[in-house]
């Protein structure tokens, strides 16, 4: 059964490439990146092997702890659980719990992140090569540690999924994930507080981590090398206990979710009237704006896509409070504007095959583009303007408001324009409507990242005039340049948005059936 599940995962992965070559490209890019990372780190570990054992231990325990922590948090917050083998699919098959748990766990190694983690953890033996027994221990402990990572990721995502499967609850939960992110600020600040002090503390940190689930696996070879058999034995027992508890807890949650399959709906309140459709004119573009705005609030995928945006000011504010100049916080507003404006580039992908309604009703491309841009703009403008206006006032430099507002407006309009063109041409595999917004389809990450990087780059290039004017203003401190930045931001942004809607609209007009085909394949 375990072998069957592993084969199934490999087969599903291979079949998804046959559906969409882009997913293959995504996986290859991801694998190439993982391979590069692995090779560099292995070279590093070989180098580390010639250092003092104490240093080797400190570095490895801290590094491995960070990786384990990453496995616990990142899938929940950002990339999502690997959705290829959804445990819910097995709810009608009588698979014994033990075999399902083991099988699903081991399938995690079929895929770039799991494979790279396994290779890296086992390769830690290179750093312990001065002693044969220690190196051997490192291989075994590394494999166990990698398994622990997968189990931990499964546990945290299953727990999160169980919490978030009720739609109303999910909407709240999407907001709750902001909270750990806020903690990033102090952590970043702590790192800046003094690198040297951190280096003095690290060995002690490693000592503590070596007893926690995070670092216990990485610390085992050190005990063997030092010949501390009693400590090592205790640590080994502890490590196995941690692994057993996590696997058991996940297995319990898994079986509970299989025995009480959660329906991904229910208990939502509708609305009596037309809702946000009534906020916009009764025209095709108005209807699209109203519908899109409804989705911004009702579809958690939209919120999940811009999860960091409302936090940017706080993170940057914290970061800038650690530096002598307060200006870092100024970056928040334009960054937010670009991120939010750009987020509509996934709009048609999010529509999925519901886009067919736009095809059969013969919506004009410009109306489609304009409606979506309007909905995003209505939502984003107050947010980004607040981020542009409040910080200068708090710092006591109200004169900066004009320049910052100009750059921000320019950024928002330009990003909307670029995204309007991009999403008329490219769709990518996204989480399907109604699914957990924190899942991710295989190979989607790299492709989405590539498209987004390219379009963000284009948006940045188009913003050069505004950026130059704002810098000139800060250097010369002459209000003229601030007003120029505002004027250019408004004018250039409007032109770019208009051009983006026109060009994107024309592309949609000619390529509507092809877009429809693309979203059908992404299904």
């Amino acid at each position, binding site marked *: 059964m375990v072998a069957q599940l592993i084969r199934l995962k490999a087969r599903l992965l291979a079949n998804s490439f046959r559906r969409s070559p882009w997913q293959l490209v995504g996986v290859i890019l991801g694998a190439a990146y993982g391979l590069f990372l692995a090779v560099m780190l292995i070279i590093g570990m070989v180098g580390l092997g010639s250092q003092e054992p104490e240093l080797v231990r400190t570095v490895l325990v801290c590094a491995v702890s960070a990786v384990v922590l990453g496995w616990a948090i990142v899938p929940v917050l950002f990339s999502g659980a690997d959705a290829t083998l959804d445990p819910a699919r097995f709810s009608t098959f009588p698979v014994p719990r033990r075999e399902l748990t083991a099988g699903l766990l081991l399938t995690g190694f079929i895929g770039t992140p799991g494979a790279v983690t396994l290779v890296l953890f086992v390769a830690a033996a290179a750093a312990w090569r001065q002693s044969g027994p220690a190196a051997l221990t490192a291989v075994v402990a590394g494999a166990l540690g990698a398994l622990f990572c997968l189990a931990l990721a499964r546990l945290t995502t299953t727990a999160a999924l169980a919490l978030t499967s009720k739609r109303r609850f999910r909407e709240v939960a999407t907001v709750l994930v902001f909270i750990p992110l806020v903690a990033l600020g102090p952590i970043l600040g702590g790192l800046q507080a003094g690198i040297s002090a951190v280096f003095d503390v690290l060995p002690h940190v490693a000592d503590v981590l070596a007893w926690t689930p995070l670092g216990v696996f990485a610390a085992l070879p050190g005990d063997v090398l030092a010949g501390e058999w009693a400590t090592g034995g205790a640590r080994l027992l502890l490590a196995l206990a941690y692994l057993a508890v996590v696997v058991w807890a996940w297995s319990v949650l898994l079986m509970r979710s299989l025995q009480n399959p959660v329906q991904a*709906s229910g208990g*939502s309140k509708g609305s009596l009237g*037309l809702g946000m*459709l009534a906020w916009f004119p*009764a025209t*095709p573009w108005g209807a699209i704006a109203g519908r899109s705005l409804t989705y911004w609030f009702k579809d958690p995928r939209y919120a999940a896509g811009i999860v960091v945006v409302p936090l940017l000011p706080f993170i940057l504010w914290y970061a800038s409070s650690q530096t002598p100049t307060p200006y870092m916080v100024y970056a928040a507003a334009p960054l937010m504007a670009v991120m939010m404006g750009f987020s509509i580039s996934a709009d048609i992908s999010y529509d999925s095959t519901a886009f067919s*309604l736009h095809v*059969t009703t013969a919506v004009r491309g410009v109306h489609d583009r304009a409606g979506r841009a309007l909905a995003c703009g209505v939502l984003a403008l107050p947010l980004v303007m607040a981020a542009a206006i409040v910080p200068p006032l708090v710092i006591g430099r109200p004169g900066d408001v004009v320049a910052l507002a100009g750059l921000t407006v320019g950024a928002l309009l330009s990003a909307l324009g670029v995204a309007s063109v991009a999403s008329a041409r490219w769709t990518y595999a996204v989480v399907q*409507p109604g699914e957990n917004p924190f899942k991710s389809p295989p190979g989607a990450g790299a492709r989405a990242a590539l498209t987004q990087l390219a379009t963000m780059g284009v948006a940045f290039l188009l913003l050069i005039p505004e950026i130059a004017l704002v810098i000139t203003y800060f250097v010369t401190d002459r209000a003229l340049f601030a007003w120029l930045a505002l004027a250019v931001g408004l004018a250039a942004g409007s032109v770019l948005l208009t051009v983006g809607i026109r060009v994107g609209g024309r592309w949609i007009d000619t390529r509507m059936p092809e877009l429809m*085909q693309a979203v059908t394949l992404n299904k």
Partner: protein
Amino acid sequence: MTTVNGPDCYIVDMSNLNADPTTARPAGAPAIVVRGLGKHFADKVAVNGIDLDVPAGSFYGLVGPNGAGKTTTLSMATGLLRPDAGSVWVHGVDVWREPLKAKTMLGVLADGVRLFDRLTGRQLVTYSGRLRGMDPETVAERTEDLLRVLDLEDAGSKLVVDYSAGMTKKIALATALIHSPRVLVLDEPFEAVDPVSAANIRSILTDYVGRGGTVIVSSHVMDLVQRMCTHVAVIAAGNVMAAGTVDEVRGSESLEDRFVDLVGGRSDGGGLQWLRS
């Protein structure tokens, strides 16, 4: 807009809204003409260059086994899927040359596509009307009529995502009817719909055909097609096996028997011997 009250006439009058004097066209003038329509996916031919003539005012059934190419054909006829070859005309307008003009005459219920299901039923129907650029008063009036006739009045304020499969089908049908199209193309309209609603939908469609509208439905249910449709085409493996009036196609047999004759593949005996309790 007129709404006639009466035991059998709870139907919204839709066909004369787009009315033009030519509605009284000679019987049999084609509403949809398909010539040499073909489509292949990878190395598989889905539709093999077919010809179809759907007379105006006909109730046209498209039947065929799973994977015969029904949905592919209907998708190409409605502008959802670009054909590799061939042409489609709706009342003389080429769907792929003048898509905007053709689509105003078409009402489409596609099979296997999602809806914007985070909207309520009322919002979704309104959305579809407004996408077509109709004036808001007409949209509002017709939306309420449609919800009432399709027995979705109470569900109109619920999110479509919470609908049952049958309700979802009905609300999708409402989005296809709101602009009073001259031709309705319905892919599997009765799937998962309860018998009462199916009867309601049937009488809406029959009434619509009676007023000069044209309906094309795809279905697996031969009995339904035999009772409901005036014309039928049998499709198998991407080819039209037979087409014409229902009586022409079925001859002296029942449509179901004729269908199995044409398509083949009935197996008897030698089945699942072990399937018993």
